[in-house]
């Protein structure tokens, strides 16, 4: 291990991105721990080179999905296919998966460079070759100057970048990222987010990114898969997910929404005296008591001294101002243009109007005046 940087620059850059990434198909995965169905018929297809975020609350099975793909655990039933090949009988060692773990996972007994070179050493690459490659990948994550440092000498963000480099160095079939940023502070997290996305595009490597942070998922992924209780709630692009959530769970988990109690009658619901059509997969039974789920931008207000609600909170968000309007027992969040918001005093009476074409409804939850994701 002489001068690593010298070796790296004297060799041509060998890291050519693969023509296209691998295609991943998860077919009806089931994994049961005791009485918990961690995965309950989970199916998902990921196109080559796609960046998919798995989003869901804690304990919904996100990590379990990654562990199944990486081959760390046995499935109770179902199949994992990569490029059409069933991996059921392939050990973790042979699967070629690049995994970055939620906790720091660098080998404490090796410096950054040797950590990155580890996978290549396991593939019996010649020493000079693998160190050059490792130095090159370290450079990609911007850590050439840290090559000789041991994990305990690096910051959390640096360690996770080395872990990313280590996963990328083996040119894996699929890159599996299990909340790699959750232990880092906000600024480092934002930087690394951009860096991961950039590298992923450049190498066009199929990537599954696990997170419970909706902002992270929406800003990074080509498609987001929202999970709940070991199942898929909805898989869609960030824009579709936000604008057209299929289920109440998705509507509440992604973005901000308010729940307004109402009755379902003849395909529509009555919201503040206005009949609104119902969208989505979940159709309630006729006459059922339901909650309408409304985004702040689905609503608008008109100042009216005889109005049905009054303003209880105002928060300035820049171009828009978010109001909380109390309508009978229900606080409702509404976004208005900031110039309009400025004119409203706290306590001012207003009328609330729905401006979206249709609304999503969910079964009534008692005591659920307002919910935020």
């Amino acid at each position, binding site marked *: 291990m002489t001068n690593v940087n010298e070796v790296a620059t004297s060799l041509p850059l060998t890291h050519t991105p693969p023509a296209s990434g691998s295609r991943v198909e998860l077919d009806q995965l089931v994994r049961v721990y005791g009485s918990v169905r961690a995965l309950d018929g989970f199916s998902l297809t990921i196109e080559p080179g796609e960046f998919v975020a798995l989003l869901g609350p804690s304990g919904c099975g996100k990590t379990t999905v990654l562990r199944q793909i*990486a*081959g*760390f655990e046995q499935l109770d039933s179902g199949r994992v296919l990569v490029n059409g090949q069933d991996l059921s009988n392939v*050990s*973790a*060692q*042979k*699967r*070629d*998966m*690049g*995994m970055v*773990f939620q*906790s*720091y*996972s660098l*080998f*404490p*007994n090796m410096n950054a460079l040797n950590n990155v070179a*580890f*996978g290549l050493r*396991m*593939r019996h690459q010649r020493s000079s070759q693998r160190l050059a490659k490792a130095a090159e990948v370290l450079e990609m994550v911007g850590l050439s100057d840290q090559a000789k440092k*041991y*994990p*305990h*000498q*690096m*910051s*959390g963000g640096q360690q996770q970048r080395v*872990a990313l480099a*280590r*996963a990328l160095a*083996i040119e894996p079939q699929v890159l599996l990222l299990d909340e790699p940023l959750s*232990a880092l502070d906000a600024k480092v997290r934002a930087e690394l987010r951009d860096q991961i996305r950039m590298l992923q595009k450049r190498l066009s490597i199929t990537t599954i990114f696990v997170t419970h942070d909706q902002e992270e998922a929406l800003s990074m992924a080509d498609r987001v898969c929202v999970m709940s209780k070991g199942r898929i709630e909805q898989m869609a692009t960030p824009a579709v997910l936000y604008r057209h959530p299929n289920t109440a769970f998705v509507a509440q988990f992604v973005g901000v929404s308010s729940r307004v109690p109402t009755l379902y009658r003849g395909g529509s619901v009555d919201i503040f005296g206005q009949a609104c059509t119902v969208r989505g997969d979940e159709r309630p039974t006729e006459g059922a008591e339901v909650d309408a789920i409304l985004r702040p931008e689905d609503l608008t207000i008109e100042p009216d001294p005889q109005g049905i609600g009054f303003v209880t909170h105002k928060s300035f968000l820049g171009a828009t101002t978010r109001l909380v309007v109390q309508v009978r027992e229900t606080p409702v969040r509404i976004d208005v243009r900031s110039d309009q918001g400025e004119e409203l005093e706290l306590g001012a009476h207003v009328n609330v109007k729905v401006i979206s074409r249709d609304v999503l409804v969910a079964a009534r939850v008692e005591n659920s005046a307002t919910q935020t994701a």
Partner: protein
Amino acid sequence: MASIGVPIGDFIANEEAGIDRPMPLAGARKKRRRFSLWRFIVLFVAGAYFLIPIFAGLKFSLQDISGRFSFQAIQNLPSAPGFSGAFWLSMRLAIVTLVVSILLMVPTTIYVHLRLPRMRRLMEFITILPIVIPPIVIIAGILPAAPLWAKSSPYLLSFLYVILSMPFIYRSLDAGLSAIDLKTLVEAARSLGASWLRTLTQVILPNLRPALLSAMVLTLALVLGEFTMASLDLWTTIPVWIVQFNTASSGHVQTAASMLGLIGTWVFLTIIVSIDRSESRKSRRKTGTL
């Protein structure tokens, strides 16, 4: 005793106050002085308790019969009848015990940590049994039960020493494995293409080195000092030899033999402690960055 502690405690308190730092409040200072005084009393008593017998032994082994300073006892040691036989027997037993213990306990402990974490309590209980059950009970049970071929070999003792050393080995390994994120490290290595063997040799064992070393030293000290079993099994190991080689003029040589064993173990311990220290300094820095 207290009259020795006071000036030392004072000296330290003054030293610290002298450093370019705001003076601590009078109350805090008083408290600190009393605290360090107690520290020195405790240290002194404990030190005297351990060191006086050792010092006496060392002094005795460096005297001739008339009480003058001499290296004669140590010089006579190798040629003392039966010593070299006992020495090499103890060494062979120590090595066999170490190899068998490590081969048995390292994979077992790692397996329990990785796959059967709920069994850790049970393992702890089982491995502590040799401390709870006196060695004499174990050997008294084994001897009538063991087949003749086993009884005729000294390595039956090694087998028993493996049992005796279990508490030390298991506890050291358990602590070492708990200090690293074993599951994640193993999974990282596996997904990077490492076989189980290479995961063990290149990832787990290097990070377990201090734990392994301390387990080995403790085992070594145990084997070199064990008397009951060896004597009942009729094998002359060093401790048995020390007791047997008991003539009027031999006291100095016997003591020299004990001292030799003690010093040897100490040298090992010192090495371990210094390795452990640099290791724990590393991990302290590591937690500082999280």
